[in-house]
């Protein structure tokens, strides 16, 4: 509904009120994929979101196109406007609001500096054409929200570029806008950016992208992970390992490194997550594997806190950056399963060295490198644990640093190599 509470020569207020049916939202086809919870307690019926943009597209199509039936001269002129959108679901902070609106010439009246909540009262003032304002709102409200209620396809690029015509290509945060407006679909975003100015796609998402991996980002500059994989592969080679169990194989990065090794006749990757294993299956191209490869390289679902009879009879097991994802009180189950039950001749384990964390920029004091890390150990902690495990189960253990060694804090990652006594 649209109504005009105030109409005078000096000032006119138009109110557009959008009433969404909360029951249909949950019932209808627009169920969001954020899990079941999002279905029933959600702010969608109340906040300005992509629903608002859709409504604007229907109601203000003419105005947004810069046309007016009766007052074309006013439509063509920049006028002084105050805009209020309430409430807005803000996925970010005040800085985001500034970054989006200030370059376009708006003054931000609200939210204030001290905002805490995710639901804000957005007030802006500017002097510009009404059509421009509406188009800004149309594009930027879902960007603030970082969500769209419908499936986004290539058509969305056309809509974005049409409504962004004349301002988006100049906007300093056009990447952010494009990314969020296209629901983080990288291929769409690249196409949109290319069309905007034939620009090269950016290499790394600087903010809020769903694939953000904090640990990787910290460690990326030193190629630490590649280093780890090399070190583990080298240990396996030196010990003439023919069969290896990669416990916590994730998406198969160590496995794809090991596949190239001659002499490894059997590589089995184990992970607790079906989805991760599916990704590993794709990345290792196991769907295209011939018989020989399919026999040599396999994946299985398994868990490090359970025993597993399928783990018997392997030369070696590797646990690359795995143990820190296990609750400390469950490590004893891993030790039993691996060192008392499966008993491979060789166990190679790597884990972050917590001492090194102070040297990472951007890692807050006392924080761990990854939200799923249940602990990170100092060198002394890791070594004392590993010594006990080795002693109790008939293994010898040696340690090596991984990555550049700092005199005080050691290396970013640490490796333990357990060899079963009496195994050549």
């Amino acid at each position, binding site marked *: 509904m649209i109504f005009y509470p105030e109409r005078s020569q000096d000032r006119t207020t138009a109110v557009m009120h959008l009433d969404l049916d909360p029951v249909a939202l949950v019932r209808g086809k627009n169920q969001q994929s954020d899990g079941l919870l999002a279905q029933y307690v959600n702010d969608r019926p*109340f*906040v300005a979101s992509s629903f608002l943009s859709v409504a604007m597209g229907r109601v203000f199509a003419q105005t947004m196109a810069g046309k007016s039936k009766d007052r074309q001269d006013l439509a063509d002129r920049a006028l002084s406007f105050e805009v209020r959108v*309430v*409430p807005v679901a803000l996925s970010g902070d005040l800085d985001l609001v500034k970054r989006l609106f200030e370059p376009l010439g708006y003054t931000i009246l609200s939210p204030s500096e001290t905002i805490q*909540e995710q639901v804000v009262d957005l007030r802006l003032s500017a002097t510009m054409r009404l059509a421009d304002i509406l188009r800004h709102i149309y594009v930027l409200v879902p960007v603030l929200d970082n969500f769209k209620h419908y499936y986004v396809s290539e058509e969305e690029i056309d809509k974005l570029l049409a409504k962004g015509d004349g301002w988006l290509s100049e906007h300093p945060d056009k990447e952010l806008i494009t990314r969020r407006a296209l629901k983080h679909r990288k291929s769409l975003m690249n196409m949109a950016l290319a069309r905007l100015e034939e620009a090269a796609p950016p290499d790394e998402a600087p903010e809020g992208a769903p694939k953000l991996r904090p640990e990787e980002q910290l460690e990326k500059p030193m190629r630490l992970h590649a280093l780890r994989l090399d070190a583990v592969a080298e240990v396996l080679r030196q010990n003439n390992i023919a069969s290896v169990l990669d416990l916590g194989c994730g998406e198969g990065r160590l496995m794809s490194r090991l596949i190239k090794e001659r002499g490894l006749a059997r590589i089995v990757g184990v992970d*607790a997550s079906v989805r991760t294993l599916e990704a590993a299956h794709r990345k290792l191209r196991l769907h295209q594997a011939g018989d020989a490869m399919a026999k040599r390289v396999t994946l299985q*679902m398994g868990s*490090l806190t359970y025993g597993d*009879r399928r783990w018997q009879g392997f030369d070696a097991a590797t646990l690359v950056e795995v143990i820190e994802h296990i609750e400390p009180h469950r490590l004893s189950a891993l030790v039993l399963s691996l060192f008392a039950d499966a008993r491979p001749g060789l166990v190679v384990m790597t884990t972050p060295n917590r001492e090194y964390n102070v040297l990472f920029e951007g890692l807050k004091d006392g924080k761990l490198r990854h939200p799923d890390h249940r602990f990170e150990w100092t060198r002394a902690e890791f070594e004392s644990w590993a010594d006990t495990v080795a002693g109790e189960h008939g293994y010898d253990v040696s340690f090596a640093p991984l990555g550049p060694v700092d005199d005080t804090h050691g290396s970013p990652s640490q490796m333990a190599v357990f060899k079963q006594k009496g195994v050549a």
Partner: protein
Amino acid sequence: MTKIAIPDFALVVLVGATGSGKSSFARKHFLETEIVSSDACRAIVSDDETDLAATGDAFDLLHYTASIRLKRRLLTVIDATSVKREDRAKLVQLARKYHALPVALVLDIDPQICHERNQDRPNRDFGEHVPRNHSRALGRGLRGLQKEGFRQVQIMKSSEDVDALEISREPLWTDNRTDHGPFDIIGDIHGCFDELTELMGELGYQIDPFEAGCEDLIRARHPEGRTAFFVGDITDRGPRNLDALRLVMGMCDEGSGRCVIGNHDFKLNKWLKGRNVTQAHGLDLTVAELEKTSEAFRKQVSDFIWDLRSHAWLADGNLVIAHAGLKEELHGRGSSHVRNFAMFGETTGEVDEFGLPVRLEWARDYRGNADVVFGHTPMAEAEWLNNTMCVDTGCAFGGKLTALRWPERETVSVPAKAQYAIPAKPLDADQSLSAQQDHDRLLYFDDYATKMRIETRFKSTLQIPEENSLAALEVMSRFAVDPRWLIYLPPTMAACPTAPEGPFLEHPDQAMDHFASRGVTDLVVEEKHMGSRALLVLAKDADAAQVRFGIEDGKAGVIYTRTGRPFFKDETEEAAVVARMRAAMQSAGLWQELQSEWVLLDAELMPWSAKAQDLLKRQYFPTMTAAKSSASALLEAIATSGAIEGLDALRARATNQLSNAERMGQTIDGYCWAADRIDEYRIAPFHILASEGKVHADQPHTWHMETLGKLAEADPILQMTGWKRVDLNSAADREAVVSWWMKHTGAGGEGLVLKPNAFTLRGDKGLIQPAMKVRGRDYLRIIYGPDYDFPENIERLRQRGLGRKFSLAEREFKLGFEGLNRFVEGRPLSKVHECALAVLALESEPVDPRL
């Protein structure tokens, strides 16, 4: 008429030339599904039952089909010519692999008759030479069939013989499934006769007067008709081998006792039969005694041993007794391998540092439901391990003689009066954990990573699809508490049937009607608290935790969520709450009252904000704030307008929306408070789920609430739950429930829960819902949205399907209590854990989360 009996589990091989009449013979005597025919297999793989080029593949299929049937312990008949020795050899091998007795039924018919028959049938246009060659080949092998491995051979020389044969089926010797005992299963005697008679006395047997050292059998029996079941190894090492033999033989003769063969018995019989045996391991002592007896007596002993079975499969397959134990796949089967396993156990051929054979620990991997009771390996204590128990407690070595009473599953022992022999390996020293607990430190993933089928004691077997078990396994392994604590996961609770009209979506009337319509009128009604579900496993102290849960890290309890995760992130905070709860149990005298050193409580832990901080921040607060600011901004805009058409309706609606949003806010606020200190928590237990020896799902809710009432007085962090017992036949009681509900929910309470007082109750259509929630009008705003009760919304929301939720609540209840019962009965943790996993797996079924 020739009558023969064959075992009811066997591989029956029909032998005969083409045209000898095997197929009609087979159809006459066996079920169609029991017959695996080479012609039929040939047809399946080639569409032509005479296509000889398909013979190789056809026989692969025949062997495969037969092997699956045999694996499932089904009698199987092979309808193929099988006239060649090498063809029969493969079948004998197959029978051995699955421990089925191979039986040959030979149709040795004149080849001329075979040829004539073939000519009468389509597709059998082979020459005369074919049946002739078959017949010749058959003739060559006829005499050697027994030698080939057939345990039973029947040769029919003519069509008349074939027609005259009558076949009956008999259970295998070892198949005593109809014998339900009760049994007193007595461990290796090894000539410890004095201990044996003392033990028999303790067990209540009456032994007839007898004279020591003579040849008369000693007779004894139990006045209640119990059976003494000896696990073998009657003699050697001890001082009174002859008397031990006399008693066991006497009881077996009378039928008051039974015995399976042990390796010592087997060896003794070799000596009795005059074979050359080394007289070691105490055999010399037995020989010295028996040498003084008459030849007739020795013959009697030898016959007795000769007749002993390898094992006994008893009580509907729920009990197996064998001297050295038996793997599940060998139960109730017959082969020399079964006999060897039952007598000697499974060995690798290696010997250990004491010169004893290295045994494979079959019991560790045993996952069967049948109890397997055995002896053979002397242990310090008789203990359960995965439903198996070794009752050899080394009496001859100065240990004790032990009996297991079954089905009671209790052991009775008497100590040895002396050490009669020195063991090669010392008996295991005292262990801090039981054998089962030691084993249960590790559960096996491959036991669960499959479609699970769980039999419950609630007359239903529940299936869990593999993908759901895998999802549950992932969650378990990443987030759950130690499985040794996780003995139970709670079921979801049914929401009441929807109110058909009026301002309420849920109302106590419908819940009361639901129970009344199922004939349940004795209810307990309880306040429903809005916090987070918490399961509290409490032990009296760390020692008690070790004894009952096998936990050795000094913890005396845990608190976990309804999905099995630790309730508190901080272990010290958990320990502090556990300590307060244990102290409360102590001062309320509940340890004593329950006669238990541990207890499992089902509770709600408040405030909601303690656990749901993240949810509140991400979901509930933004929704409420958005609803509020949207409505107030609209009202503001309307207030500044003059009279505009249609605005009055909008104003009225926005006013309502604002007030709904505010009520939603107040409702949430009521469930949230800062709880930085333990004192600010409120724990409201509502079930005493289990304690030593008992699952309290058979106690009325009045007992639960009264007992918990005492607990609640012991510590201010405990909050008593308001409750009432009501009789649905009383209109006054029904009204009281409604007015209580109105009052309680009007003051911000979540709602009430209605439960059949009897706790677990079956109706005509299965389990009665064990609990049903009726949530308040304002509480539902945080579930269905602030404006859910606008008329246009509520009418649509009434169309909610409750069937799935009801079914889920019922299945989870059964699984949860099945697991808990298993724990209380001391079943292996792997069997307890599968129930918890299954509850978690069911939670991944899609159900409307608002219910």
